[in-house]
């Protein structure tokens, strides 16, 4: 009889036959998230001379179903930064908790400096890159709005691959195609134009783009959140805004649109 420890507690091979280990190995390789489930659409961000404006609608879609209509996709961190999340909502919740725990740990000692938007963006991008390198990506595309180390307005993007990008105007998802070209009219000379953009101009441009996105993006909603981060580090967040001044006159001419089938 086999007295080796490997055989302890196991049915005896000579009586029951060798152990059938085939079920321990599935025929498929292990796989992680291949596609997001419940998703949020575009996030828009614009820098102006004294801060940053960021906006996203309040919808979370399940495929093409408008599943949740009061979802806050703009989230504040460390009191002075706002992150707008596009993509998977459960991954957003995971990142929210991760960043909150980071903030808690950061404040254990009272050394007098706290996480700014630039820190959060760097951290997030590294998390994204780590997860995509594990073939287990966090399915998000985020905009980080706030202030950098020198207290200047900061706006940057990070996506599920860990790619980062910065510009005075940014948009994720559908907005990257529909809103970004419109927003760029505000800043013809890129970063050099930011000093000429006022808070009102930035807010108006973002609101206009939210409207265009609602017209054209079938995964969007007319309820949205908009936040302004100012140079003083204050955040003015409005979480239940409704699109104003819509005109659907153009839809009249379009056949096969909505309930009109032909």
């Amino acid at each position, binding site marked *: 009889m086999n007295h080796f420890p490997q055989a302890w507690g196991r049915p005896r091979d000579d009586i029951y036959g060798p152990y059938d280990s085939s079920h321990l190995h599935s025929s498929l390789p292990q796989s992680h998230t291949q596609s997001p489930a419940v998703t949020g659409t575009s996030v828009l961000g614009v820098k102006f001379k004294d801060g940053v404006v960021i906006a996203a609608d309040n919808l*979370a879609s399940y495929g093409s179903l408008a599943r949740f209509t009061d979802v806050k996709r703009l989230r504040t961190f460390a009191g002075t930064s706002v992150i707008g999340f596009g993509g998977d909502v459960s991954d957003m919740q995971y990142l929210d908790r991760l960043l*909150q725990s980071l903030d808690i740990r950061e404040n*254990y000692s009272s050394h007098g400096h706290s996480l700014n938007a630039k820190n959060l963006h760097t951290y997030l991008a590294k998390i994204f890159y780590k997860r995509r390198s594990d073939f287990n990506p966090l399915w998000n595309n985020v905009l980080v709005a706030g202030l950098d180390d020198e207290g200047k307005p900061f706006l940057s993007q990070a996506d599920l691959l860990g790619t980062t990008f910065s510009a005075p105007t940014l948009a994720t998802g559908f907005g990257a195609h529909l809103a970004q070209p419109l927003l760029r009219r505000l800043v013809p000379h890129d970063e050099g134009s930011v000093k000429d953009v006022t808070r009102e101009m930035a807010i108006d441009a973002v609101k206009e783009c939210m409207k265009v996105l609602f017209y054209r993006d079938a995964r969007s909603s007319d309820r949205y959140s908009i936040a302004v981060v100012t140079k003083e580090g204050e955040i003015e967040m409005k979480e239940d805004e409704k699109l104003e001044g819509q005109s659907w006159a153009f839809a009249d001419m379009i056949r096969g649109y909505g309930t009109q089938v032909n």
Partner: protein
Amino acid sequence: MTSIGTGYDLSNSVFSPDGRNFQVEYAVKAVENGGTCIGIRCKEGVVLAVEKIIVSKLLKPGANKRIATVDRNVGIVTSGLLPDGRHLTSRARDEASSWRRTYKSPIPINALAGRLGGYVQAYTLYSSVRPFGVTAIMGGWDTEGELEVDGQVGTGPTSGGGGKINDHDIGEKISRGGPGLYMIEPSGQYWGYYGAATGKGRQAAKSELEKLDLASPTNNLTLNEAVKEAARIIYVAHEDSKDKEFELEMTWISHEGGPTKGRHEEVPKELFDAAVKAAKKAMPEYDDSDDEQGEEGGDQMQE
């Protein structure tokens, strides 16, 4: 101690015939020589204060903080062996973050006190460890607002199944959260307090705390007053070891609508300075000229 030398004090977890654990009692002795720590719990929040004896003139003033933050809404200060206190604080932080991982919300103050009490008590049970040489005072605020789930994205239904219970549904104001102040001793014993004191000057501090009448339901001590009282009590408790210089450290936690918005923070400099000034003024041997000497003369004015 008459029982010293009987052998029952050599190993932890061993009872003496009259039912005492001497190792725990010796640990209490370590605390009795530590810097005085106090906590005051009032309706608006909690104040923690500690008397830090300056052991060397080469130490940087204001560095080497003794009051630690746990999660966002809890502060812990310990008296006794400082490294033991650091370890206990670290454990408290682990407990708080593991609570968050499980329940997606901040740990209630009473639950944290329970976890720490259990942890400290475990160190009285085995011969391979010694008890904690610290008594910890823990103050915090459980939010009085509706408790959000970490990472929550929506508000949920406003009525019906899964809806919320509002004040008018039950015909009275829903009472949630509030201040919490606990003291955990080397035995693992912990009680909730209105005012707590430990360390060298605890007797004087306790009698001062009792005068504040904190337990009375009609007590209306404000948080700012509590800060001033805390500073004064540390100064009073320092009377017996006047030959040693000390530094005062104070933190506070207010309700959500108050100055710290439910967070544990250092008392801001302005209020701190005012509290120290008032504390010095209240001392019996206070001399008007002390002020001017201290502010203008600096070091060379001292003897």
